[in-house]
C-alpha cells in the first residue's frame, strides 16, 4: 500500500502496484549501480582525479530509478546539477560518467562539462545555474506539444531552487498553454546548507504550483515514485501540467567540499540510513515478496561492482581531450569567422566535435 498527498486532485496515483521479477532485478541493479557510481566518484575525488564541484546523489536513488521506470522512450528529462544518477539511467554508461568527471575524452561531454554537465538523448542535462533548467524544460514541453510527439517533459529541481522566480513564471506558462510537463521537486530537505523550512515559507512544494495540481510522494519508495510518474504522464497528456514532490534525503553533503554535518546532526543522517534507506526498503520488498533470492541479490551486486571497476579504470586511464578542442563547439559550424579570437593574433581554429547533436 502506498501513500500520497494530493493538491487540487480528486484522485491520485495507484496505491496498489504490481512488480515482476524482471522489474525487481532491474530496479535493484539500478539502485545499487547508482549508489556505487557515486561512491566511485567520491573515491576519485578524494584522489584528486576529479576536481571542482561534484554533487553526489547518494541516498536519493529511488527517485531516479522510480521515475525512469515509468518513462517511455519519447519522454524527456531535464535536471539540475546532482545528475550522475539521472545521466546513468538515461543512457550514459558508468564509464562515460566517471570519465567526464576526470576530464577524459571518453567522457559524456568529452571532458568539457564536468560533473554538472552530462547529456544524453532525451536528457537535456545537467545545469549549473539553479532553477534555470525549469524554463528550459517548459520550452521542451512546448516543443513536444507543437510536434505532437506524445512526449512529456520532466523538469527536475530541488527544494532550494523552488524559490527561484522563474519557476513560477514557468508554472503560469505551462498552465496557460496546457503544456505536457511535470515539474518534479526532489525535496531532500536541504538547499546546500539551509534546511527547507529556513528558506521556504511554504515547504509543501507540491502545493507551490497553486493553481497547478500536485502530488506528494515518498521519494524513498521506488514503486511509489513509479506509480506517481505513470499518473503524472497520463495527467500531463490529458489535463496539463502537474507538480510532483519527491520527499527524499541525501547522505552526503551538498558537494564534496561539504561534509554535510554542520547543518544537520549525524544522528539524523544515521536514522534515515537505518530506517528509510531506499535500497534497503526495496531489498526487503524483493525478499519478502519472494521476487528475488538472497543469492540473486548478491549476484546483482557483484555484476554492478564489476561494471563500476571497469568504469573507474577508464576514468583513471583514458586520454584527455587535446588542446585543439579548447575552441571547439563555441558556435555551430556555419559561423562566418571560423576562427576564435584570443591573444597575440593566435586565432584558434574553431570546429564542431560532433556532426549530429542529440536532437533531430
Amino acid at each position, binding site marked *: 500500500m502506498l501513500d500520497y498527498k494530493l493538491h487540487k486532485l480528486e484522485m491520485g496515483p495507484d496505491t496498489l502496484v504490481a512488480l515482476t521479477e524482471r522489474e525487481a532485478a532491474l530496479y535493484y541493479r539500478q539502485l545499487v549501480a547508482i549508489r556505487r557510481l557515486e561512491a566511485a566518484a567520491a573515491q576519485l575525488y578524494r584522489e*584528486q582525479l576529479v*576536481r*571542482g*564541484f561534484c554533487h553526489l546523489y547518494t541516498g536519493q536513488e529511488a527517485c531516479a530509478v522510480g521515475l525512469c521506470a515509468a518513462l517511455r522512450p519519447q519522454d524527456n528529462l531535464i535536471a539540475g546539477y546532482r545528475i550522475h544518477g539521472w545521466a546513468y539511467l538515461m543512457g550514459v554508461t558508468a564509464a562515460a560518467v566517471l570519465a567526464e568527471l576526470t*576530464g577524459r575524452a571518453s567522457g559524456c561531454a568529452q*571532458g*568539457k*562539462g*564536468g560533473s*554538472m*554537465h552530462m547529456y544524453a538523448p532525451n536528457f537535456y542535462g545537467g545545469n*549549473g*545555474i*539553479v*532553477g534555470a533548467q525549469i524554463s528550459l524544460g517548459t520550452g521542451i514541453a512546448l516543443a513536444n506539444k507543437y510536434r505532437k510527439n506524445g512526449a512529456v517533459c520532466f523538469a527536475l529541481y530541488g527544494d*532550494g*531552487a523552488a*524559490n*527561484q*522566480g*522563474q519557476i513560477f513564471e514557468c508554472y503560469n506558462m505551462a498552465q496557460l498553454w496546457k503544456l505536457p510537463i511535470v515539474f518534479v521537486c526532489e525535496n531532500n530537505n536541504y*538547499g*546546500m*546548507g*539551509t534546511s527547507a523550512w*529556513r*528558506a*521556504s515559507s511554504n515547504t509543501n512544494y507540491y502545493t507551490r504550483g497553486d493553481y497547478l495540481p500536485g502530488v506528494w510522494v515518498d521519494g524513498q519508495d521506488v514503486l511509489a515514485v513509479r506509480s506517481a510518474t505513470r499518473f503524472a504522464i497520463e495527467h500531463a497528456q490529458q489535463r496539463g501540467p502537474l507538480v510532483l514532490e519527491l520527499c527524499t534525503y541525501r547522505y552526503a*553533503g551538498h558537494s*564534496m*567540499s*561539504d*561534509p554535510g*554535518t*554542520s*547543518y544537520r546532526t549525524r544522528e539524523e543522517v544515521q536514522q534515515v540510513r537505518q530506517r528509510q534507506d531506499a535500497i534497503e526498503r526495496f531489498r526487503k520488498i524483493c525478499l519478502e515478496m519472494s521476487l528475488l533470492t538472497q543469492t540473486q541479490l548478491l549476484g546483482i551486486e557483484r555484476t554492478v561492482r564489476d561494471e563500476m571497476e571497469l568504469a573507474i579504470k577508464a576514468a583513471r586511464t583514458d586520454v*584527455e*581531450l587535446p*588542446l585543439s*578542442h*579548447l*575552441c571547439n563547439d*563555441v558556435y555551430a559550424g556555419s559561423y562566418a569567422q571560423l576562427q*576564435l*579570437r*584570443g*591573444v*597575440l593574433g593566435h586565432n*584558434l581554429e574553431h570546429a564542431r566535435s560532433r556532426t549530429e547533436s542529440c536532437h533531430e
Partner: protein
Amino acid sequence: MPPDLCDKIIIMKVSSLARGLFSAIKSNAASSTRSHFTYYPTKFSPGTRDVQKMNMFQAINNAMDQALEQDSSALLFGEDVGFGGVFRCSVNLRDKYGKDRVFNTPLCEQGIAGFAIGVANTGATAIAEIQFADYIFPSFDQIVNEAAKYRYRSGGLFDCGSLTFRVPCGAVGHGALYHSQSPEAYFAHTPGLRVVIPRGPIKAKGLLLACIRDANPCIMFEPKTLYRAAVEDVPTEAYAEDLGKCDILREGKDVTLVGWGTQVHVLLEVADLAKKQLDIDCEVIDLVSILPWDTQTICNSVNKTGRVLIAHEAPFTQGFGSEMAAYIQEKCFLRLEAPVKRVTGWDTPFPHVFEPFYLPDKHRCLAALKEIINY
C-alpha cells in the same frame, strides 16, 4: 602564513559551525600549488597605524564588522551569510549584530538584488552578497535597470546610493563554467554604477568601506582565489580607499602593464621576469576601479612609456580591455610606440579541463610583452 595560525591571531570567535563546514575545504588548499599566480603582498609604509595579519576574507569580515558597528541602519544579507558565508566573509557577524541585521535570503538572486535596492531606497545601508559572480545574471535586470538609473530617472529625488553588492568572482583553479566568471565588463557598460575589484586584503577592506559609504550603488567583485591566498598586514582602524583611482604598484619607463584582481599578481611576476630576462622596466598598475576608471593616471603612464599591455581573465571580445584600448589609442596616439596589447581569456566559455590554457598566465603575458617591445 598558514590559515590556522591566522585564525588564532584574530580576536573574533570563529563560529564552530563555519569551522566544521570548511574543514574539508582546508584540505583542498593543497590545490593552491597549482595556481597560475604568485601572490605579491602590499606593504604599508611604516607608521603609527595598528596593523594585524589578515587574509582577504578576514579583512572583508573586519570591514563589514566596522560598517555594521558605525551604521545602525546597515544590513548584510545573501545566501548562507548567516553561518558565516561559503567563503567565511561573514563569520561571527550574525552573533554580534543579530538575525535582524545579518540574515540569509532564499535562493533568489533577482529577489536579493531588488530587495537590496528597495532597502537602499529608504536610505538604509544594504550590503548584499551574490554568492558567485556566475549567478549574478538573474539580478542583472535589477542592477542595470533599477539600481543604476534610480537617481537619474527621478531627477535626484530617489536613489539607492547606500547599496553595495559583494560578489566573489574569478578563476579559482577548478571552478569550470559557473564558478569562475569575471563579469565586470557587463556592468562597466552601465552608467550609474561603480565597479571595483581588490587585489588583496588591504585593498579589499578599504574599498568595501568606501563603497558602503559612497553615495552610488557599488559592486565589489572579490577574486575568490585570493580569499585565503592573499595575506597582508591590514590596518585595524576603519579606513576607506579612494574610489575611481588606480594604484601604480611599480614604476618603470619601458612599458605599462595594467590589470586588476588576481591578474595584478601575474603582472608583477611578469615584470620581474621582464627585468631579469630582457632588462625591461615595467610600470605595473592595478586599475582597482573598473567604473569609472582612472583614465588620467593610465594615460599619463602610457604617454611616459609608449607601450601598454592590458590583461584580464574575462574573454577577449568586449572585455574591459577593449574599452581601455579604444580610449588609450585615442588619447595617446602620437606617443604610442606599439599597438595597445590585450592578453585575456579566450573567446570561449570558461572551460572545465582547459583552465590552465585558458587563463592569461605569465607565459602568455611575457610573450605579448616581448612582441610589443620589439614592435
